[in-house]
Every structure is written in C-alpha cells, then in structure tokens.
C-alpha cells in the first residue's frame, strides 16, 4: 500500500515500539501532526521544544528505551539543541525528529530554515537529512539502531515537508546494514584475564563505576564483583544507583564534590577498576596527580574513552555486563581487610555532614526525601548546588533512580526530564530537586505536567541565589556576588504553581519538611514545594578546580 512520507515515519516509529513522543507542532511538520491525530502513540505537547528534548531524555534514562522528540524546522529545531547536547554528553538513546523546509528550498534562507544537521553534527551520535522518500524507512531503522546500541546517544532525522507529502510503498527493513558501524561488545579474553589477575593480586582496589553500568544493565554483576571480593565502590554522578549506597562497601560519589573517603581511597589505591566511566575532569581533578599509586583497569564500550585523559594499564573495550560476568568467573578474592579498615577510618573521620541545628538546610530536605521514599523514588535534578546535595544526601539503591545532567550540566534539565521519567515510569514517585535559578529555565513545562496529568513533585531549594556560582564567588572571588543574587526578583512559586493548576507549598521551618513531603507525595497532582533554605549554605567537601582530589575544602587533607 502506498503511504505518505509522514505516514511512513509514524509507521516506522510504531515498528520501533515507540509509545510516546514529546514535541511541539509547526509549519513544516503539519503532515506529521495530521498523522499523529489518530495514531495510538501518546503525544505530549510541551511548551518549549527544549522541554521536549529533556523529557525524551528523562524518559530514556528512566526506562532504558529510546526517547523520541519532535519539533518543527528553524527555531523549533534549534530549541532542541541544548537537549540533544545534554543527551549526547550523557550517552542517552534518543531520536530527535525535525521538520525541514521543502527540499528545493534548502539553502535558500527559506522561512524557518536552519541547517540543523550542520548545527547538531558535533552533538549527535549521527544525523540524517532525508533527501529521498525511498531512504526514509531505512533511515528511521538505522537511527534507532545507532541510538540504542554501542555507546548510546542522540540521532537526529531532518525530514523536509515535501518528502512528508510524497507517497511510496512502505517496507520496513528487517535489519540494518552499515559497514562503518559495528560496536564491539565482547571484551578481549586476554585482557579480561590480565584484569582478573590484577584484581586478585591487588591490596587496595577501588571500583570506580559510572553511567555505563546503568546503561549496560550491569548493576547485578558489579555488585557481585564488589561483594564477592570485598572491593569498595565509588560512583560517578551518573553511576549512582549502580551499587546500593546503603551497603558498607559503598563510598558514595567521588570527585569535586565527592565524599572525602572516596577521594582518599582513590588517591591511596593500588588498583582502580573503572567500569563505564570516562575520567571526567570533575572526577579526576588534577589529572597528573590522580590515583598516583594505582594501576588502572578500564572497561568501556567506547574506545575513545580509553586513555583519553588518564593513562590506562589494562583497557577492555566492550559491554560492561558481559565483561564483568567474565571477570566474576575469573577473579580470586584478594585480601582487602586492612584496606577496608583504613577506609572505615576515613569514613568515621570525614563523614558527609552539615550543621544539624534548627535551621532549614537543604541537606536535611534531601535526607527527608530519602526518608519519605526509602530510595524508591526517581530523583531528577537541576544543575548546581541542588544537584550535588541530591547526589550526596539521597541514598540511591537501584539503577535509574537518579536522572541528572552530568556531562553538559544543563540548568533547566531536571523538571522536563522528570516529566519524561514519570511518563515512562507512571507508578514511580518522581521528584525534581531544583534550585530557584534552574527551575525558572523551563518552568513553562508546569502547563505540560498539569494538563497531561503527570504528577511530578518539584522540591525547590530556594536560597534566592544562583547558589553554586555564588559559592565559587565566595570561595575564589572575594565574595563579589556578581549577578548571582535573585532576591526579590523571583516569582512567588506557590502562586505560580497555583496559576498553572498545580499545588504550591511553601516550607520555611525544618519541623514542617517531612509533613509537607508526605502531603506532596499523596497529592495526585503536580506539586511545587518552595523550601526557603539557609541562603549561604555551601556544598562540601569541595576540590578546588585544578587540584588533586584529596585536596578538599572541608574534607581533611591527606
């Protein structure tokens, strides 16, 4: 049967199992929207295309499925850019579909024309401009395959409106055939043996695991490696949940705002077992001084991540789950008793702490969210102090329970990502831990959440500052608070919530936090909680930029 290009696209999405699209209409996607009108794919109309990209990203991170967003040409497409870049940095499977002006107008500076394949080339895993309707089904098939395999990432398909309108027989290809793309999943057996021996021979091993463990669904294998061999585990921001924070081998996060004991452990270690992590500069601090006594094993599916910043002794390129399984079968348990005792000493000496007085402090709010949900919630975060407190003080016990923009550090990410996460996991309690700065970057999505009945809970840690930047200004710029104070210029978040049809709450006392959280969780609506916190609370410990990671403020010097 002959179909229009628009229908071919929608049928292809159905073949890929797409259940929801986040998007926004416009001139050159009218044929697509006409098809969407009576197709059983859920469509979530956002209020800004950036929200669509972040929501698709949040959906993907919460479920492991490919998130799909859709926007029109020109400004619609460019509004997706921040969301695509965010997904790219954090290896999130996403397919972004944009409309494009008619093929014969491309390059003519037509109305709402932008070269979106050119613009997104460095921030997509791959992208396509569909030039012929005959290629369309194959391109969709390839796009989903590329997005979800290997190291996942966003793929953009730019579809001109005239191709949406042309007609062709629909044949969806059974498989893809790309000679230039063939990710390697099996780790090299010789390298795995070498790694197993290095672990067996180690005295002070540390597992340093990242988002790759979550993506590869390798949490079970990671837990086995750690617990069978008594190896402590530190996690990156994106790795949180891969190993339960409640376990005695858990060291929490490492790096700039990591725990003192994780950073000390890395610096004293004789073997770093890096799994699905990429030695980001926020993790390593001063690279030359990173883990000076350690051999490094690096398990990663992306060869470019290996020896990019830190030199690796035993690289193993492949899928974390498969490689960890092999490792588990080959490692002989090292004796780490003395090492664990040393770490226990650091844990006692340098715990994560904050002033436990009667003031309303942000760390307490996060702890109470943990108490109220016992690790069963999905915590999305914005970026800045709120993000770091959410990483430090909530105990993540399972994968996909924290959703945060780690690589790009995108303010305004958390709320739309929470919408996407809630759509993907409707039974989960989904929080957005926000700051009063970040939440205003995509606050328009309150309309999306309320009108689509997506009852996410927003906890604004409101200090009337762009807090993380203020913290740096306090510590490194002589308290010259240049353009970071929002006092008196923000809206009344309670009234704002109410005007969107959400529930607003303001919490100013420590004693009221728990009751408010319980009420918010029970409320079957979007809730905006405005926690008026201590204004100049800082995130500690902190490694100043460019320092070795044991040179922490408030973390004890090694």
């Amino acid at each position: 049967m002959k179909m229009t290009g628009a229908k071919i696209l929608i049928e292809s999405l159905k073949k890929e199992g797409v259940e929801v699209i986040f998007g926004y209409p416009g001139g050159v996607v009218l044929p697509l929207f006409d098809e969407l009108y009576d197709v059983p794919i859920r469509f979530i109309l956002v209020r800004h295309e950036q929200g669509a990209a972040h929501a698709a990203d949040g959906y993907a991170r919460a479920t492991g499925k490919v998130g799909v967003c859709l926007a029109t040409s020109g400004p619609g497409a460019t509004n997706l850019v921040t969301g695509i870049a965010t997904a790219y940095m954090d290896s999130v499977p996403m397919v972004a579909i944009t409309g494009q002006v008619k093929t014969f107008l491309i390059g003519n500076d037509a109305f709402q024309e932008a070269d979106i394949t050119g613009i997104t080339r460095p921030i997509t895993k791959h992208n396509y401009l569909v030039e012929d309707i005959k290629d369309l089904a194959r391109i969709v098939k390839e796009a989903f395959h590329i997005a979800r395999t290997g190291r996942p990432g966003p793929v953009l398909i730019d579809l001109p409106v005239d191709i949406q309108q042309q007609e062709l027989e629909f044949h969806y290809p059974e498989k893809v055939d790309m000679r230039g793309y063939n990710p390697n999943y099996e780790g090299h057996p010789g390298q795995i043996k070498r790694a197993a021996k290095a672990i067996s021979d180690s005295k002070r091993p540390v597992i340093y695991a990242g988002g790759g463990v979550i993506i590869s669904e390798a949490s079970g294998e990671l837990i086995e490696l750690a617990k069978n061999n008594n190896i402590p585990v530190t996690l990156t921001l994106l790795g949180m949940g891969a190993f339960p924070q409640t376990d005695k081998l858990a060291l929490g996060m490492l790096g700039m705002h990591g725990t003192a004991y994780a950073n000390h452990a890395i610096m004293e270690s004789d073997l770093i077992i890096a799994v699905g992590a990429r030695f980001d500069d926020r993790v390593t601090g001063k690279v030359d001084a990173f883990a000076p006594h350690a051999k490094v094993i690096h398990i990663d599916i992306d060869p470019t991540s290996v020896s990019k910043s830190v030199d690796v002794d035993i690289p193993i390129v492949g899928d974390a789950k498969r490689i960890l399984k092999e490792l588990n079968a080959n490692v002989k348990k090292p004796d780490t008793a003395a090492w664990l005792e040393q770490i226990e000493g650091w844990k006692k000496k340098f715990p994560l702490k904050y002033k436990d007085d009667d003031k309303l402090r942000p760390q307490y709010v996060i702890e109470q969210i943990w108490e109220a949900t016992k690790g069963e919630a999905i915590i999305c975060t914005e970026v800045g102090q709120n993000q770091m407190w959410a990483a430090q003080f909530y105990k993540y016990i399972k994968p996909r329970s924290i959703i945060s923009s780690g690589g790009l550090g995108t303010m305004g990410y958390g709320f739309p990502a929470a919408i996407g996460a809630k759509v993907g996991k409707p039974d989960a309690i989904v929080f957005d831990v926000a700051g009063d700065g970040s939440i205003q970057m995509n606050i328009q999505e309150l309309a999306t959440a309320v009108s689509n009945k997506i009852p996410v809970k927003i906890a604004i840690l409101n200090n009337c500052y762009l807090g993380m930047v203020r913290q740096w200004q306090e510590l490194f710029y002589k308290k010259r608070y240049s353009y970071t104070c929002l006092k008196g210029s923000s809206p009344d978040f309670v009234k704002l919530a109410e005007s969107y049809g959400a529930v607003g709450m303001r919490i100013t006392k420590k004693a009221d936090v728990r009751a408010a959280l319980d009420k918010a969780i029970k409320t079957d609506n979007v809730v905006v909680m405005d926690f008026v916190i201590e204004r100049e609370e800082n995130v500690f410990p902190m490694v100043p930029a460019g320092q070795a990671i044991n040179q922490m403020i408030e973390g004890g010097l090694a």
Partner: protein
Amino acid sequence: MKHTISVLVENKFGVLARISGLFSARGYNIDSLAVGMTEDPTVSRMTIVSEGDDKTLEQIKKQLNKLIDVIKVVDFKEGEFVDRELILLKVAVSSKTRKEVLEAIDSCGAKIVNAGSKTISVEAAGDQNAIKSLIELLRPFGLMEVVRTGRIALEIGDKALSGQGKPEANE
C-alpha cells in the same frame, strides 16, 4: 610527528564536514586533506596529514573510527607507503631570469604548462621532498601563486586498504 592517515568513508553528502568538523572541534591539526572517489563509487578515500603526539594521534584514529560514515582508518607507518602531491605554481620571469628559471624547472623534473613573457606556470608531482625543493628553488624568482592538492598516499605491496579487488583475481 607528522602522520599520514588514510580514511575510507561512505561517499555521501556531508561526510567531509563530519571529518573536518571533528578535527576543528577537538583541536586537532590538519596539514593537508585530499579526498576523492575510490575504485568503489560508494566509497571515498581521504588522505589526511596530521601532526601530534602519540596520544593525540591515537585519539584522532579512534574518533575517526567512531564516526558512523567512516569505514576504515589506517595510519601509515614510515616506509610502508608512497605519497605524492600535485602542485601548480606561477613564477615570475624576466628576460634576465628566464634561462635560470627554466633550468631550475627542468632540474626538478617539473613541467611547464604555460609560458608567458612575465610568468611561467609549472606543474609538478612528487613526494614531499620533491615538492619542497621545487618551491624553494623557485621562490627567489618570485612565486606569484602556489596551488597544492594535498598529499595522497598508497601502501606499498599487494595488500589493499579496501580489501576488494584482490590481486589474484587478475591472474
């Protein structure tokens, strides 16, 4: 150190932009880049001359391989390949210098493609040393224009980068 890298890529719209964009975005050097269709019309071959330390070169090769449209990447080792570049140049001549210029061109095995009263246009092909000495030889006379194709390279021996058209097929 300078490296000569051959890259087989899909002969598709936008591939050159992906490669050059990768180099500029990540701050890698390109000394020269030459590209053209291969024996297989769906495949193009790029010869990229780049400079960097071993770690950088390793990253360049990995990053190139990561591109979906890149089929194969080979960093040629010294002595395992031949390289050539085509150059066109225009040199100034006067009645005084004409003879000397002609001798210089002849000594380098270069070809005259056009000779006027004030200029001579020259074509030459050769490896990097040959091209360099031609330019240096003619520079004192006044080089008015130099146009270079960029280096292309071919591995020595019976192996072929694409693995197609095996030599025994022709026997």
